[in-house]
């Protein structure tokens, strides 16, 4: 059956400085389909969608909507045509309620806020699309998954016909992701078209109708989901490049005690107890995983060990030396490294160039400054060595790191954090949101650090990652330590039960 496309993008080309972000991309979208855009970070997925949304102006190319040529000059043009997007970072106003947020997003909103009408509309859509949203709840009370549902609801209330979702499953648990895709399927069944940006192959094979794979700004492959296989997708996504496989080496026995944490109590930003008197030991040469659903106290644990957050009671000792009251600088010099979860807010400075980011922790070292004067030559050499050793792709050492792709930013951050041969590496979600290439490379790096004798504290939401990487795993639930297991003596089922609060 020949369907007519609701949307056609033809020959879209977008250049940034010297980088071809999109190179003559053609894309067709039909009513009632879920279309997956697959590709590594920096392959041009987001750029293409930003062109569609009228956020970027393409250098060449045309967009047809229902067969008619349209000019996407501003995001408003796209919104008028019924094209809407759920970004990775939600655009919600925290203190306002769900209904109020949705009201704000309806462009034809009347002068008077008709709360009842909106709430009625919300509950109607909630039922129709299996999209569970409480219109009276305040945004800040909602979990990330619920906030995402509000974003989707916003688009529905705006009568969007084309919905674009950027990495929607990145912030969700597997169960939540399944629910979300069910909702998307119902919307497609209603005749709407959905574009899902993703880098998870299993997910797109399972839930999409068609898959377009982008690589280096070009279309590498396109296929019906029914025709897709992991092999074919992998070849399209990573090309012929050889991916070194991560090999999980068995841990060596009789390791030395590195860190002893006793009865740690830490508060979160809201002043509530985030960690309830937890105790654990870390050994040299191991990867110690922290599993748990989001917001169980992982972030507070990482920050408390790194010294960014105050420990309210309890104690931490490293190699027998108490560090509870030591400041960050002292902890850094004792060999504690920290890879924070939100690298652009803490860890990297997006507005500064690679070299200045590379020496953030070492600018005082004699190699990089003398009598307080920075030694630019050796700083450049250091940055260059990071680039080579970790295969960091960049547009120039002098460009702001904010312009680099997420994977390359993370590689730079990790290169810096392991440069001083730290004893303890705290890694919070080090591969979240990264493509396969970067993920493999970062995992490899962390394993090398373990084999060198460092302890890696790896916080992750992905059980696959925990089991693949870790020697031991601790499970946090609601700020309480549910237990610690050797990964080869437990299974997904047990860890899953501990994550949900069932004590073993």
């Amino acid at each position: 059956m020949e369907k007519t496309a609701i949307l056609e993008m033809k020959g879209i080309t977008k250049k940034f400085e010297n980088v071809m972000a999109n190179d003559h991309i053609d894309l067709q979208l039909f009513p009632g389909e879920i279309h997956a855009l697959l590709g590594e970070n920096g392959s041009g997925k987001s750029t293409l969608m930003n062109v569609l949304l009228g956020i970027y102006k393409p250098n060449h190319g045309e967009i047809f909507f229902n067969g008619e040529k349209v000019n996407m000059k501003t995001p408003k043009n796209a919104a008028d045509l019924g094209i809407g997007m759920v970004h990775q970072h939600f655009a919600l106003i925290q203190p306002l309620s769900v209904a109020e947020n949705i009201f704000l997003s309806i462009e034809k909103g009347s002068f008077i806020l008709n709360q009842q009408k909106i709430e009625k509309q919300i509950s109607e859509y909630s039922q129709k699309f299996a999209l569970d949203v409480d219109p009276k709840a305040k945004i800040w009370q909602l979990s990330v998954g619920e906030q995402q549902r509000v974003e989707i609801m916003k688009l529905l209330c705006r009568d969007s016909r084309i919905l674009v979702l950027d990495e929607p499953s990145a912030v969700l648990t597997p169960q939540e992701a399944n629910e979300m895709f069910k909702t998307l399927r119902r919307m497609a069944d209603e005749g709407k078209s959905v574009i899902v940006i993703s880098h998870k192959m299993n997910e797109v094979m399972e839930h999409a109708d068609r898959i377009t794979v982008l690589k280096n700004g070009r279309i590498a492959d396109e296929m019906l989901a029914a025709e897709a296989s992991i092999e074919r997708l992998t070849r399209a996504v990573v090309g012929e490049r050889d991916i070194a496989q991560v090999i999980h080496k068995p841990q060596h026995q009789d390791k030395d005690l590195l860190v002893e944490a006793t009865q740690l109590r830490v508060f979160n930003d809201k002043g509530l107890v985030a960690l309830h008197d937890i105790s654990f030991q870390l050994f040299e040469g191991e990867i110690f995983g922290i599993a748990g659903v989001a917001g169980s106290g992982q972030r507070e644990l990482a920050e408390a060990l790194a010294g960014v957050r105050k420990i309210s009671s309890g104690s931490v000792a490293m190699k027998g030396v108490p560090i509870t009251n030591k400041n960050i600088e002292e902890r850094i010099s004792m060999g504690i490294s920290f890879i924070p979860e939100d690298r652009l807010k803490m860890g990297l400075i997006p507005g500064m160039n690679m070299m200045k980011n590379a020496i953030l922790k070492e600018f005082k070292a004699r190699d990089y400054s003398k009598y307080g004067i920075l030694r630019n030559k050796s700083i450049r050499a250091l940055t260059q060595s990071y680039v080579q050793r970790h295969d960091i792709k960049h547009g120039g050492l002098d460009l702001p790191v904010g312009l680099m792709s997420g994977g390359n930013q993370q590689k730079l951050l990790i290169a810096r954090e392991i440069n001083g041969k730290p004893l303890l590496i705290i890694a919070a979600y080090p591969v979240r949101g990264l493509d396969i290439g970067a993920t493999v490379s970062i995992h490899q790096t962390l394993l090398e650090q373990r084999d060198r004798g460092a302890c890696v504290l790896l916080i992750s939401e992905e059980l696959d990652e925990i089991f693949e990487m870790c020697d031991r795993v601790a499970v946090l639930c609601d700020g309480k330590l549910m237990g610690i297991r050797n990964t080869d003596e437990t299974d997904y089922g047990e860890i899953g039960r501990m994550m949900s609060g069932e004590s073993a």
Partner: protein
Amino acid sequence: MKIGTLRFEKKQTVSLYKKILNPIVFIILGMAFSCVFIAAAGFQPIAVFAKMISYSFLSAKGFSSSVNAALPLMFCGLSVAIAFKMNLNNIGAEGQYAIGAILGGGFALYGPDLPAPFSWIAVFLLCALGGGLWALIAAALKAYWKINETIVTLMLNYIALLLLDYLCYGPWMAPKQTTAMTSTIPKSLYLPMINGISSGVFLAILIAVLLYLFLRYTTVGYRIDVIKNSVRSAEYAGIPVKKFILIVFVLSGALAGLAGFVEVTGILHRVQSQLPRGSGYTGIVIAYLSQFNPLAVIIVAILFGGLQNGSAIVQIMGVPSQIATMIQGTIMVFVIVGEFFNHYRISVDREEKKGGART
């Protein structure tokens, strides 16, 4: 005809050539606009501007007094610029200038006689100390209690200026004087004049160059840059942010205090009521227009000094001082607006779709 939507696009980079050309174009536009009220007041606009420019910048005598007028502006501009390098909004240069002048001037007037270089050094250090201590109040409140430095520094200005008034009308007022000023400081403390230009200018240029190098090439400058860009990343890297707030704020205040040094020892040779005359506020504009670059501060300050000087000279032609002040203000506004166009490009989108434009 339908009117399209205006679009503001931020420019990524601005060439040096445009950075320099842009203010010149907008100064000319500002002058053109000023012609309206000069003409309305019954004067020949061209003649007025010709006089202003030829005197302020083209005659040797006029140029030297332009530079002298710019002298305190240079220090106030540097003061604001360094504070802003760490996102500290120090609008208290006016007050720090006054306190610097009180401490340094007080020593010059009533302190012990010291041999030549030491007396200068003492006055210099006391001016810097006065400005620095005055800034320290706002700095400590900001660092330890997160109290907004903009409001604190502004309020401290009133206190400082009233203190200066009290001294100049009261205990320090020169005998047989009717205006609120002290007697002159000892001649030995006068900064030498070189071809009518105060040697304080060389001090200003030296400090500007040092500041420029300091911010660009030292680990302290690097850390200031890190804090400006991301306080959280600075804390993450173990940089003591509070300590830096204190250091940079005090440095900023000390520079404003040095405006007092050059004015008292170089130009006025006494302390008087309302001494800063708004230099601290003009310093904010100068720092902003210089994009917080210390070297550019010197140049922009001379432009502003010339503007002040030029509007004084046209009063001899009978142009009332109010008109002269209006010319000054108008040109300032135009240059600031011009700065905006240095960073944003404006384009007009015409709506092509029918019914796209709503009324």
